[in-house]
């Protein structure tokens, strides 16, 4: 049974959308089911996704054809060492409520990846133990990879820490 069929069978309507382009399975899941889907992907013996390869986000603010839809998409790239297969999971969030449950309890690497996504996109991860900026400095205002952040905005220089 394919990975996507298994997810659809088990989680039903929580799997909003799927595609399998060139053997590259991708599923969009509802936010409320996200943690259950992730935990199942990790712990199920047939799936056994033991590696969170990447966790990132996309801002669809100015994306042709998707300007009206949910603005943010948080993307999880999973890989299974045992089965050598991959899965991409996406969860969509509106601009006014960019909240996603944290995956730190499942994969510790999610800690820094989620901090980076918070830093760059301003997506909050509920339950994250220490959601601080990762790449930018604390005094920085805004989230620079959002499409409405002016590309050449200047922010005040920071001095040496006293």
């Amino acid at each position, binding site marked *: 049974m394919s990975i996507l069929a298994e997810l659809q069978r088990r989680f039903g309507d929580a799997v909003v959308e799927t595609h399998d382009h060139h053997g590259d399975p991708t599923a969009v899941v509802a936010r409320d089911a996200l943690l259950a889907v992730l935990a199942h992907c990790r712990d199920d013996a047939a799936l056994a996704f033991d590696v969170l390869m990447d966790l990132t986000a996309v801002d669809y603010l100015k994306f042709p054809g998707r300007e009206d839809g949910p603005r943010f998409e948080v993307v999880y790239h999973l890989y299974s060492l045992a089965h050598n297969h991959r899965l991409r999971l996406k969860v969509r969030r509106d601009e006014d409520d960019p909240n996603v449950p944290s995956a730190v309890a499942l994969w510790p690497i999610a800690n820094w990846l989620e901090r980076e996504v918070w830093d760059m996109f301003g997506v909050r991860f509920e339950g994250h133990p220490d959601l601080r900026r990762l*790449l*930018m*400095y604390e005094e920085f205002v805004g989230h*620079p990879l959002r499409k409405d*952040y002016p*590309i*050449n905005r200047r922010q005040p*220089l920071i001095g*040496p820490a006293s």
Partner: protein
Amino acid sequence: MGVGSFFTSKLDEAIGWARKYSIFQYPFVTACCGMEYMATACSHYDIDRFGAGLPRFSPRQADVLFVVGTISHKMAPVLKRVYDQMTEPKWVVAFGVCTCTGGFYDNYATVQGIDTIIPVDVYIPGCPPRPESVIDGLMKLQDKIAAQAQRY
């Protein structure tokens, strides 16, 4: 020493001459310009000819700060602190276009020229500058050091 084989000079010029041939650099290397800096510092180009062959990796022992490579906003306070830790007299060389103006990094992360943080004596443009440009900049710095009014 025979009769008449002496010369007179001004103390200023003697000190300037000595200083320009005893450049102890602090290489503040952050990016790809570092490769070109290493090429310059190796035997083929031999900057020991200019008395600049011995980099010091403590700002307290250095008198020329070579800022080599892109400086991000997060790195800016570190650079300022290193500059502050150097003892007088001190000079700063902006190595590569990123340190001169920010280069093509016109974005949220990059300082638009290190002269927004610390004073700069010599700018060496290029992405990265060839060793010949670096040596040209070094000689310009030597001229500047030699001509500078000395404080004793």
